[in-house]
């Protein structure tokens, strides 16, 4: 079993701060002003708030047990590590967007400025124990737990 991020749509207010904090967490400076105002390429969030009328929730990689993105990736950039995380090794990504095509959740995002895919790594690369989106959500609409 592994911990995953789960959304509680009944308390999500669609503020999109998870997107902001995710982008900052994965930026070079990890500073909100510098990341948004001065970093080139601009850091991309790895979480998307899906919103329609009064329903909203944050969606990121589900770290599937049998991830289609890993099975379909043509270069081996996508892999499932021993802890169960689906990890995207950007240095091996050529931006073919096959994972974008096959992911049933629409989780991998295109970073067009770098020609590579970006996706949630549960903040593994940044050394956080609790992902930034979960910790910074002002209404606790995201939880990080085993289910």
């Amino acid at each position, binding site marked *: 079993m592994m911990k995953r991020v789960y959304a509680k749509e009944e308390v999500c207010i669609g503020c999109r701060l998870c997107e902001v904090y995710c982008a900052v967490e994965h930026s070079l400076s990890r500073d909100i002003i510098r990341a948004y105002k001065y970093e080139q390429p601009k850091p991309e969030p790895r979480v998307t708030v899906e919103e329609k009328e009064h329903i909203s929730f944050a969606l990121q990689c589900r770290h599937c047990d049998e991830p289609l993105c890993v*099975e*379909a990736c*043509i*270069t*081996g950039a996508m892999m499932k590590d021993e802890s169960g995380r689906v990890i995207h090794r950007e240095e091996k990504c050529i931006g*073919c*967007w*096959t994972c974008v*095509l*096959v992911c049933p959740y629409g989780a991998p995002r295109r970073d067009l400025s770098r020609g590579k895919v970006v996706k949630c790594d549960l903040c593994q690369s940044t050394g956080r124990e609790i992902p930034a989106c979960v910790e910074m959500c002002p209404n606790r609409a995201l939880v990080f737990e085993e289910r």
Partner: protein
Amino acid sequence: MSYVVIGNSVASVGAIEAIRKVDKKTPIVVISDEPYSVYSRPLISEYLSGKVGEEMMNYRDSDFYERNRVTTKFNVKAVSINSRTKRVRLKNEEEIEYKKLLIATGGIPFVPPIEGRDKDGVFTFTKLDDAKRLKARVESFNHLVVIGAGLIGLKVTESLRQRGVPVTVVELSNRVMSTVLDEEAGRIIRSAIEREGVEVITGLTVEEITGKEKVTGVKLTNGNRIKCDAVVIAIGVIPNTSLAKDAGIRVNRGIITDSTMKTNIPHVYAAGDVTEGPDYLSKGNRVFPIWPNAYIQGKIAGYNMAGVKREFTGGIAMNSIELFGVPVLTAGLSNVEDENLEVLKKSEESTYKKNGYT
């Protein structure tokens, strides 16, 4: 006794990874007529263009075989299968007994009987060695003709253009990528190709490759001639079934399997481009020579070989590829005219979307 896999590309990896999830002990032997650790076939065009180096071609980490306790027999061809004694015979006369066998011999380029196809300067483009052969001579080409405007033909054209080689593409059908793209999408791609200075000729094909020993040109079906010093034949790939046929395994276009990826011969499975496996949409069998399908079929075969029953739910055609700066994503029957389909289309300045619903 071992699990034996003939072929060392993505289907083979899918099988190895699945087997090792459920059986850590039984030896696995992989046989390949290529000398390389598993590499990404779709990346050979990026290798030719110089976008990626050989080290980037590796599809799995360098400890893949060791970690999965796989014995490799590389650079040696499997020449026959004896399903009665359950043995595979190699070119070097070695015989390997199998507990379960997976045939994952992939596809081979389809080369029609064009006159002059054996001349020096005629290439195909499916393996790393094909890309190496082309790359070694790419500086010397003044003009090159690519036969076929499918996926492989257009990717090799793009790479050659990036290397500065003038290219003419000749395609028998009336548009590029005619198996997956409709007319409008085909037009978008064609204009992107032509913008890069590539000549695209449709509705014709090459009747003869001319020259003495070396290629000096091609003659088209309308009698026109094009001067060139090399030709890449990229009409398509066909399942590499000769080994299976000789062993009495049931083959139509590809090796016929059931939903567990088993052939008609006990203990023998097939996966990947060599296979005519279940088709999700038609409920019959079909060859799907695409990467994700090969991994998934390999995985299903691997589980079943190791005694865990899993079923392949059926292949779906799908491709994601960037051609001359235009990303193209297709899935399912992306190019059918069927009045029972409800089709939604949206064309904007630089994007074209089309969805069909039944």
